[in-house]
């Protein structure tokens, strides 16, 4: 380790403090053993030992010498112990080889000049050798001012200074005294100052008794760092001079440019030598991790994380969806349907979307029991949807035709379609001769294994959902009575009904309510009237009239929900259920502590003078009537005036009645010779109504005429059902035992326009027009409800009310 002797200004003090520690470090080196006696402390040379302390001084010198040898030993690793112990005047350092490696002093001051200065300092008669040694030591160690002594004293004060070194302390204090007066000297001598090593003397007996004077003085101020301020306060004394200097400098700068006195010159600075340093560390193990964050993944995490807070909003969402689901849960009969059948999947999908509303989670380890899956409600729902979709695939052309959509040929099934197309072309080629003849095309039929063999007695469309059909199955005749059946069919599933209700006796009448669209009133053969809620999955009726006192005792042949707009009293307002039964009563049912009814009319027998009937004659003869009342078979309320209604009896009479009078008929129309099976007002002409009966005729009446305007007869079969077309005023359909007929009065009043014979062995029993499309439903005695589409049926534009009236007028005119 090299120690640089630096001639440095006063900052050396700082260095000295640092360097001071080095020797101590050296002292600690194991190779260099310093006996306590030879421990020395550096003392500034500004203080000089007294003469009488020459021994000490010499010791100190020796110590410094030994110190010097310490220093040298660092380089040469040799220490002559002898040199440590014994004081020498000349120092010689020999290395291993015996070479004289005595270092020569770096700085050779003028001994004379220095000596004069030091004369005061070194009062002792030291030999020149020692002086040189002294100097050498001086140069070998960094110098220090007097304060260093104090500093070193503080350094060593902890324990290194033995009591025996009081003398040193004394001397030091003396020395310290001096520097205060000789500050300048010390400053100038700083480069030649040397640290004195403290000599630890052996405590001698005689010295113990000496009086030791200790002087404590304030040491010099240590200035470790002096950074002069570059700005001066305006109020300070130097301000003026500083200002002046500043102004001079600015002037100088101004004058600098272009002045010959000043020249720009560049300098190169040395760059510090760089050194590379390498460090080795353990390898950092790295692992790759990747994930794909989908849009929905983030949404799910967000939802599940904020579940507590967001619960409220999601609950409302789920609640609203749950409401939607509830409405959809039934076979969507309360919903509006779009025209396209294909959209059924989207409609139902909104119901099944409830299940998928939960965030999509990777299935956990728990294995749900397969049976649980099969029994779950979602599975049922899915099955339901799947079945409908399958059927939609099968029935798609038919359903499209029903909806009056163009039927598209499946491009993948071209080969099969060819014969069909050919046949159609043949048909059309035949028709090309004249305008295409109206025809019926059978689309499909509602039937399933449950219904085969049952007689279709009545059909009714749901008032709100035009795709929902209720069909009642029950025998007309008194014999072969078996438990009746009501099936609610949806257009989307022609193979299996949506709802199946079994009733204790045959169903003879059906009607859907208009105000509460899910209420279905059923009239049965034993006189019971029941109402079912088709929205629920329950198989039992909501209410039954079997407990009612005034219930019908004979088959209920017709039920209707009638909306009384103009009512006499408050409680008559709203919708009421009216029924007509074979016991001769027309009753109005209402809910008051259970189902109860009041009689609107009792159909009395009227004497029939015009036509002779066996029964009538018998009655007149015997006067023993089975009943004073004529069995009512049908009725119909006026389309606009809900007070007026027509009732048809088994006698063949049509009675016009009013709700206000329940004793008397307003009018009686007598024309039919047999029981009237159906009376219906024309939906377009409010004066005109049709009636059909078992006497093979259909009669067209006008309200004010007591004889029918027109009568229609085509075959000698009883006409079971007749219905006006909801679309054309001149068109009505009729069904008799053997065939179904569509009459268009605008085309011909003598013959039906379209005739469709029934399958052999099957009797057609009921007819229903579809409200929005050109389709007709025909129920037969085999439990099938066939859907026919009217093709090429052009009854003219508009509803042809005028046409009908013209016909009537012309007929009347011709009769007169």
């Amino acid at each position: 380790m090299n120690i640089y002797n630096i001639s440095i200004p006063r900052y050396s003090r700082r260095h000295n403090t640092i360097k001071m520690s080095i020797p101590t470090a050296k002292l600690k080196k194991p190779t260099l053993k310093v006996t306590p006696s030879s421990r020395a402390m550096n003392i500034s040379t500004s203080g000089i030992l007294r003469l009488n302390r020459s021994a000490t001084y010499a010791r100190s010198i020796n110590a410094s010498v030994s110190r010097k040898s310490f220093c040298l030993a660092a380089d040469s690793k040799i220490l002559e112990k002898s040199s440590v112990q014994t004081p020498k005047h000349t120092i010689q350092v020999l290395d291993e080889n015996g070479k004289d490696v005595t270092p020569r002093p770096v700085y050779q001051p003028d001994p004379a000049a220095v000596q004069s200065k030091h004369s005061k300092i070194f009062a002792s008669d030291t030999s020149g050798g020692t002086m040189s040694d002294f100097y050498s030591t001086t140069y070998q160690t960094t110098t220090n001012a007097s304060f260093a002594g104090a500093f070193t004293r503080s350094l060593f004060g902890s324990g290194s200074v033995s009591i025996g070194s009081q003398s040193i302390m004394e001397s030091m204090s003396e020395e310290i005294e001096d520097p205060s007066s000789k500050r300048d000297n010390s400053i100038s001598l700083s480069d030649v100052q040397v640290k004195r090593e403290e000599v630890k003397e052996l405590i001698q007996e005689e010295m113990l008794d000496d009086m030791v004077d200790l002087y404590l003085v304030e040491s010099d101020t240590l200035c470790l760092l002096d950074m002069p301020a570059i700005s001066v306060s305006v109020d300070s004394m130097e301000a003026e001079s500083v200002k002046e200097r500043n102004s001079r400098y600015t002037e100088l700068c101004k004058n600098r440019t272009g002045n010959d006195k000043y020249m720009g010159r560049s300098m190169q600075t040395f760059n510090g030598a760089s050194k590379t340093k390498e460090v080795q560390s353990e390898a950092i193990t790295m692992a790759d991790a990747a994930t794909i964050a989908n849009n929905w993944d983030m949404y799910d995490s967000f939802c599940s994380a904020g579940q507590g807070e967001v619960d409220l909003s999601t609950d409302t969402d789920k609640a609203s969806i749950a409401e939607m689901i509830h409405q959809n849960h039934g076979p969507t009969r309360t919903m509006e349907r779009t025209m396209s059948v294909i959209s059924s999947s989207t409609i139902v999908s909104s119901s099944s979307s409830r299940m998928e509303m939960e965030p999509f989670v990777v299935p956990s380890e728990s294995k749900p029991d397969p049976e649980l899956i099969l029994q779950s409600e979602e599975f049922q729902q899915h099955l339901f949807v799947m079945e409908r979709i399958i059927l939609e695939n099968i029935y798609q052309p038919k359903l499209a035709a029903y909806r009056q959509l163009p039927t598209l040929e499946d491009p993948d099934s071209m080969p099969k379609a060819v014969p069909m197309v050919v046949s159609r072309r043949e048909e059309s080629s035949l028709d090309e001769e004249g305008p295409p003849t109206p025809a019926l095309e059978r689309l499909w039929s509602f039937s399933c294994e449950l219904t085969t063999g049952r007689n279709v007695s009545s059909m009714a469309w749901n008032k709100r959902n035009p795709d929902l059909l209720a069909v009642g199955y029950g025998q007309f005749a008194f014999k072969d009575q078996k438990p009746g059946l009501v099936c609610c069919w949806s257009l989307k599933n022609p193979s299996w009904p949506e709802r199946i209700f079994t009733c204790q006796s045959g169903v003879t009448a059906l009607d859907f309510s208009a105000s509460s669209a899910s209420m279905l009133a059923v009239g049965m053969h034993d006189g019971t009237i029941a109402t079912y809620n088709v929205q629920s999955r329950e198989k039992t009726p909501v209410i039954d009239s079997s407990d009612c006192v005034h219930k019908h005792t004979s088959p209920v042949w017709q039920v209707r929900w009638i909306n009384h707009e103009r009512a006499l009293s408050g409680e008559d307002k709203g919708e009421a259920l009216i029924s007509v039964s074979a016991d001769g009563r027309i009753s109005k049912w209402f809910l008051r502590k259970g189902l109860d009814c009041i009689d609107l009319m009792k159909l009395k027998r009227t004497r029939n003078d015009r036509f002779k009937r066996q029964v009538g004659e018998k009655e007149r003869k015997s006067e023993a009537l089975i009943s004073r009342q004529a069995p009512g078979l049908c009725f119909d309320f006026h389309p606009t005036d809900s007070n007026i209604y027509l009732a048809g009896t088994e006698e063949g009479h049509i009675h016009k009645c009013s709700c206000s009078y329940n004793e008397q008929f307003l009018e009686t129309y007598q024309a039919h010779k047999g029981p009237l099976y159906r009376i219906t007002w024309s939906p377009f002409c409010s004066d005109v109504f049709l009636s059909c009966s078992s006497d093979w005729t259909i009669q067209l009446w006008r309200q004010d005429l007591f004889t029918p305007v027109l009568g229609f007869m085509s075959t000698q079969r009883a006409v079971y059902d007749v219905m006006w077309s909801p679309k054309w005023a001149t068109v009505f359909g009729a069904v008799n035992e053997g065939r179904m007929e569509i009459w268009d009065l605008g085309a011909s009043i003598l013959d039906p326009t379209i005739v469709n014979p029934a399958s052999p062995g099957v009797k057609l029993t009921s007819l229903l027009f579809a409200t929005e499309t050109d389709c007709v439903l025909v129920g037969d005695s085999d439990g099938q409800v066939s859907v026919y589409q009217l093709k090429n049926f052009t009854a003219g534009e508009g509803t042809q009310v005028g046409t009908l009236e013209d016909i009537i007028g012309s007929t009347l005119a011709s009769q007169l």
Partner: protein
Amino acid sequence: MAEVEETLKRIQTHEGVIGTIVVNAEGIPIRTTLDNSTTVQYAGLLHQLTMKARSTVRDIDPQNDLTFLRIRSKKHEIMVAPDKEYMLIVIQNPSE
């Protein structure tokens, strides 16, 4: 339960239906009318497709979700009703 069985039976007997498969979330068939290898193949392939379809739907709108998947091919139509716990697959040949 009986209703479910009845409905399943009805579906299977509809016109053109080639096969009906119900698999659980792991792809183990619960009910099937096809042979095992075909069932497993259909279940595996359709499961992946359903996942992809669902991911697509939800990527567009995370509040949306897949309810039904229909694949119309030349020969027949495959209809998949996916769910968290199971998958209902029906293969139908509609133009028979």
